[in-house]
C-alpha cells in the first residue's frame, strides 16, 4: 500500500506532536452485500451495544446474558453484521478535538453534475478527507453538491488542504466554502429506540 501520509508535506515537518493520518482504506464499502436478513435478535443486539461495549473481561458474555443467548451467538452475529456492512467496524473512536485535530472543516463544493462521480471519488481518496459525499443543492440559497470533511491541527492547515481539493477539482468547480465547527452541540451516535 502506498504511503499517502500527508505529513510528508514540507509545511508539516517542522512540527512535532502533530497528529497524522494512516493509510486509507474505506470502511465497509457501499457495494457490499445488502441481502442480510436482519432479525429481532440482531435488533436487540444493536440496542444492547449501540451505547458501547461494557468494559469487562468478557463483554460479549455480558451482552449475551442480557439478551438470553449464548456468547458464541453474540460473537457470530456481530461478525456476520460486520461482513455485510450493517456494522462498519467494532472499534474505539477518538474525539478528534481531544487528540490534536483542533480544526475540522466541512468543505463544500459546487461541482459540475456530469463530473461529480469521478471527481468525488478522487477527493475521497485524499488522505486528510474522512467523509466525502454528494448531496442535493438547495438553489438558489445553497449551490454546493460535494461535501468533504477535512481535518487539520489548525485552520491554516485545513485551508492548505482545501487548496489541494480545489486544484484537483479544477474548472469543474465554480465555488466553494469551508464551514468550521465551533461547538459540538450533541454527540450520541445513532440510536435505535428500545
Amino acid at each position, binding site marked *: 500500500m502506498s504511503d499517502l501520509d500527508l505529513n510528508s508535506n514540507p509545511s508539516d515537518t517542522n512540527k512535532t506532536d502533530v497528529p497524522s493520518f494512516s493509510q486509507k482504506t474505506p470502511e465497509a464499502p457501499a457495494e457490499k452485500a445488502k441481502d442480510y436478513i436482519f432479525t429481532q435478535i440482531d435488533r436487540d443486539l444493536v440496542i444492547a451495544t449501540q451505547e458501547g461495549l461494557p468494559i469487562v473481561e468478557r463483554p460479549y*458474555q455480558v451482552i449475551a446474558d442480557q439478551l438470553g443467548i449464548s456468547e458464541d451467538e453474540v460473537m457470530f452475529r456481530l461478525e456476520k453484521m460486520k461482513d455485510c456492512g450493517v*456494522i462498519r467496524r467494532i472499534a474505539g473512536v477518538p474525539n478528534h478535538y481531544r487528540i490534536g485535530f483542533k480544526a475540522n472543516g466541512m468543505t463544500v463544493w459546487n461541482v459540475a453534475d456530469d463530473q461529480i462521480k469521478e471527481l468525488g471519488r478522487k477527493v475521497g481518496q485524499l488522505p486528510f478527507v474522512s467523509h466525502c459525499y454528494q448531496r442535493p443543492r438547495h438553489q438558489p440559497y445553497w449551490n454546493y453538491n460535494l461535501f468533504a470533511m477535512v481535518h487539520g491541527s489548525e485552520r491554516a492547515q485545513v485551508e492548505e488542504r482545501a487548496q489541494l481539493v480545489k486544484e484537483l477539482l479544477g474548472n469543474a468547480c465554480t465555488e466553494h466554502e469551508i464551514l468550521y465547527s465551533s461547538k459540538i452541540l450533541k454527540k450520541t451516535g*445513532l440510536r435505535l429506540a428500545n
Partner: protein
Amino acid sequence: MDNIDKQLVNRLQDGFPVTERPFLAIAEEFGLEESDVMQRVQTLLDDGILSRFGPMFQAERLGGGLTLAAMKVAPEDYEKVVEQVNAFPEVAHNYQREHELNMWFVLATETPEGIEDTIQRMEAITGYQVYNMPKQEEFYVGLRFEL
C-alpha cells in the same frame, strides 16, 4: 495520556477483537495485564479521549433513514433551538458551524419515511426551515487518526 495510551488509541481504531477475552488479546499484543488495558480504556472513555467504544452501525443497512440537515438560526434564538433540536432522539449529532447555516445535525430514524416526518415536526416546533441534505452518493467514509 502516556505513550501506551496513545498506542492503545491507535490500536483500538483498527478494530476490537470479537473473542471471548478481547481485552486479554490486546493485553498480550502490548505485553500488559488484561486489567491494565481495561482500566486504560475506561479512563480514555471517562476523559473523553475516546468518544465511542463498540460497534459502529450503518443506519441505512438497518433499514432506517439517515440524513444531514441544516438550519439558519438567529443568534437570539440559538440556545432555545439547540435545546429543541437536541431533544429529538432522532438527532444523532449536532454541530454549531460558522456560517449562515449555523446548525448542522445528523438525523437517524427507524424508517426512511421517518426523516420527512421528523423534519416537519422540527420545523413546527422551532419555527425554522430545515434544509434536508441526504447523501446521494458515498465516495468515502473512514479515517484513522495516528497518535
